[in-house]
């Protein structure tokens, strides 16, 4: 059956999957692992006892309504329709909405607030880009079909052949992706900002005093600046190497400034390599509903944005939430140790198809249908293009959309009553 892959931000819409034989076509290893059957959360549970969907949702609504400041977190691996109910639910219970990008690409959001983004689509990269720089990103392991479909081997209107394209990888490690590049620039951890600053100086035609910056000799930086300046259409595709290292949002801000400068000489764009299939939606949906992308507090009855206070990790470190709803995400596995500690002290509600580390801490567990296999809806591909993900098979599990719609209805009833 024609399918749309719901693993990474590529949201590949050219794949096929047969649910009977469990075989797929054109999938990468990650997509195939996603679509194959695996252990599921079997039934809704409350405090270790199996219950009905109605009972579990009732209990979840009760926890959310009776808490002072619940944190509603996750959203990157579900569809826009479900996220929309999540945002409205957060507003109703006067909680805090935060999403996976908070520990992923949110520094890019902060940079865009400061600088804007000179961006473009995957189609533009495929058709036009003659210089492609992967900076702190490793597509062969995180987005395996990105190079073939869009950025390295892909043939486009103006780019007819791999030889028409120069591919550069900037990274701390010699990753698998570094090995497919024409040029690999190895940098020291945490020196992205300094290197970008040096490149800005060199592109402007200024000299730099140091002989090396962040482990890269001056000559190599000059060569890189030269390649950038002489591109027809260049793109920096950055990853978590840039956002999770020293400098975080300031690294992206500096990179955007470099791109602005390069646009005086050539056409250049910059774009993040987004991880989960709808992590863009987890930011865009609240942006269209209430104006912000993450770390949104509704405790005063109107939305306020402040990552220093309302991002999930900061909330948990400060013990500033007294309940948590986790949707399609696993913060117990992916947050720093000290942040996870507070999750053990508060009621946690989980909505997810698969048992994970957050399941082990959850008081209320609500299994859901897998979007792209058992449920349909809209998702934003990594470049902001909306793609309709498909339902291939009927399932006894409720979709995230149905669960959250029902939870919102009961919460509203309780608040009115």
């Amino acid at each position, binding site marked *: 059956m024609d399918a749309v892959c719901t*693993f990474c931000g590529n949201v590949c819409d050219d794949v096929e999957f047969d649910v009977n034989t469990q075989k797929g076509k054109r999938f990468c*290893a*990650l997509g195939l*692992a996603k679509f194959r059957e*695996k*252990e599921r959360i079997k039934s809704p549970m409350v405090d270790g006892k199996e219950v009905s969907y109605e009972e579990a949702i009732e209990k979840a609504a009760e926890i959310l309504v009776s808490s002072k400041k619940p944190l509603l977190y996750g959203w990157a691996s579900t569809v826009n329709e479900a996220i929309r109910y999540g945002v409205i639910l957060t507003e109703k219970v006067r909680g805090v909405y*935060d999403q996976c990008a*908070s*520990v*992923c690409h*949110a*520094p890019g959001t*902060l940079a865009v607030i400061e600088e804007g983004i000179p961006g473009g689509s995957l189609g533009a990269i495929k058709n036009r880009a003659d210089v492609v720089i992967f900076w702190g990103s*490793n597509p062969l*392991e*995180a987005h*395996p079909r990105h190079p073939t479909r869009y950025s390295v081997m892909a043939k486009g209107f103006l780019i007819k052949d791999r030889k028409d394209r120069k591919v550069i990888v900037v990274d*701390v*490690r*010699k990753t*698998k992706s570094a090995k497919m590049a024409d040029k690999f620039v*190895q940098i*020291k*951890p*945490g020196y992205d900002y300094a290197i970008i600053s040096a490149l800005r100086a060199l592109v402007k035609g200024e000299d730099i005093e140091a002989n090396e910056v962040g482990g890269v000799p001056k000559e190599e930086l000059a060569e890189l600046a030269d390649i950038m300046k002489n591109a027809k259409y260049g793109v920096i595709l950055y990853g*978590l*190497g840039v*956002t*999770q*290292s*020293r400098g*975080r*949002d300031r690294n992206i801000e500096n990179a955007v400034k470099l791109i602005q400068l390069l646009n005086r000489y050539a056409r250049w764009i910059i774009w993040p390599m987004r*991880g989960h299939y709808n992590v863009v939606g987890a930011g865009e949906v609240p942006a269209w509903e209430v104006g912000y992308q993450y*770390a949104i507090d509704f405790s005063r009855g109107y939305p306020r944005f402040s*990552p*220093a206070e309302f*991002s999930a*990790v*900061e909330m948990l*470190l400060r013990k500033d939430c007294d309940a948590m709803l986790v949707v399609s995400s*696993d913060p*117990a*596995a*992916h*947050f*720093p*140790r*000290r*942040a*996870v500690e507070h999750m*053990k002290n508060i009621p946690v509600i989980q909505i997810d*198809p*698969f*048992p*994970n*580390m957050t*399941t*082990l*801490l959850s008081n209320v567990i609500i299994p859901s249908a897998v979007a792209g296999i058992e449920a349909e809806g809209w998702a934003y591909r990594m470049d902001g293009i909306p793609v309709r993900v498909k339902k291939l098979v009927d399932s006894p599990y409720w979709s995230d959309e149905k669960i959250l719609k029902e939870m919102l209805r009961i919460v509203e009833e309780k608040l009115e009553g």
Partner: protein
Amino acid sequence: MIEVEIISGRTIDQGKTVEEKLSEEYFKAVSYCEMNEMDFKKLGLKEGDRVKVKTEFGEVVVFAKIGELPRGVIFIPMGPYANQVISDDTDGTGMPRFKGVRGIVEKTEENVKSVRELLGVE
């Protein structure tokens, strides 16, 4: 004992098993650290040996492997093991420092905990 900078990140095996976190395959995919061959030898390690990684934010025991890394840099796949030792300080952005945290690595005889033991739950 050697001083290192710790980075974490995705791997293909971490990605393939990310929806099966309570499985043996996920445990294998995330409970190791890669280091330069010279550092590996300096610590007197053999294949299958374990190391303790310590930072000001915590410590964790993981399996040691040789990887293509500069001396003094170790890589732990993203996940619960890396998260025992990375920096929880977000500098006001919400983003912890998952990459480039200073720490030390030493050989240990201690066991590598399961994900349940790490979390401290049954």
